[in-house]
């Protein structure tokens, strides 16, 4: 298969994964598109170096995380707070029953927005493990992508989950 065919196949297969990872790190749609283009450009450049014994998913996610980590580190956090949504959510929160958590009481779109907002407020390490874990990746895959041990993935994920829960409660 030519490089072009492989690239097209990879983008088809992992477009959603890349877009989701970007959403977790950047709020502005224009910057999200720019990051998407940067990531795909770097995948294209790195394609000849890809070894068949490695997993494509982890290879693509690793490149995406490189770009996103650098982006987060360089730029001031751009956490978009949508006042209208917040006011709607506040009203909704008042109706939350005693058994359900505030997160569970919202509809899916609102929950997605809250989740993304909260993830963007985590620190870089936590953002990395949370977004990959939410994508359904195993500890081993996350460890491979971030070049850390599976034990460290477990520790970071536990802390990240706790921080995320607190943030979701506060939002």
């Amino acid at each position, binding site marked *: 298969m030519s490089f*072009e065919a492989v*690239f*097209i*196949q990879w*983008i*088809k*297969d992992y*477009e959603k994964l890349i*877009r*989701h990872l970007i*959403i977790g790190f950047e709020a502005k749609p224009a910057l999200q598109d720019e990051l*998407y*283009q940067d990531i*795909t*450009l*770097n995948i*294209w*450049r*790195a394609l000849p*170096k890809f070894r068949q014994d490695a*997993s*494509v*998913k982890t290879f693509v996610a*690793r490149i995406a*995380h*490189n*770009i996103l*980590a*650098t982006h987060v*580190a*360089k*730029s*001031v956090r751009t956490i978009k707070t949508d006042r209208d949504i917040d006011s709607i959510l506040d009203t909704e929160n008042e109706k939350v029953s005693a058994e359900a*958590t505030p*997160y*569970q009481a919202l509809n*899916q779109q609102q*929950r*997605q927005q809250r*989740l*993304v907002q909260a993830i963007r407020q985590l620190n*870089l390490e936590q953002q990395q493990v949370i977004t990959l*874990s*939410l*994508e*359904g990746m*195993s*500890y*081993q*895959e996350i460890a491979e*992508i*971030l*070049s*850390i041990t599976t*034990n460290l*993935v*477990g520790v970071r994920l*536990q802390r990240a*989950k706790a921080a995320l*829960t607190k943030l979701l409660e506060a939002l």
Partner: protein
Amino acid sequence: MNEENTPLNEKAKANMQSEQQKETLLDVTSIPVSNNSADEKETSVLDEQWAEMTQDWQAQSVPKTDISALLAQTKRRTLWAKGCLGLNVLFTIAVIIAFLIGLFQGEYGTPMNTYLGIASIGTAIFVYYEVKIRLQTWRQCCDSPDKAIDNAIVACESSIKYMILNKISCIPFAMAGNWFIVVMAEENEKSPLKGLLFINFFLIFVYVVADKLHKKRKKELQRLMSIK
């Protein structure tokens, strides 16, 4: 391309389960007996919430990409980046060759030869830094993400050096450029005013742009250092 059922993933799932078991064991041994049921309830709520979060996260809608357009754009960008670098290298070689021809055949005269000599040294230094920065950036993409910040710091520092070089080089270029225009105008018996205005405005423009980028990179470096 679907890797969900690969042996690697099966192994990973097994590892993950054992990790989770370890964590559960740790949690159970570390919590006081009296709070056991409350904590279990809390954990189960968290697990339930986590499952819902995963579902919500994966259900997020994303814009569909025109892959052919993306491929064309990617190729264009790669070609542009390599083309610009290649042109710079060719230009440097051409200036050096022109200087050597002028020096050994003595065709251009002293002012032109002096100017070409300064220009060939200057462009060679610029191209060296440019190649270094480009290679650093291209190498960075498939390195491990834990090195992403270190790589970004190195790239940022190189970029800062490049900007400083740009700013400092304005002084010798201004001196050489002004001298060259005055001498050439005298030789041709023309007014040097237009040439002097052009070269000085051009150098001021270069200095201002380099200064702005220098400040931007310095801010980026500070941010990178603060999270390292």
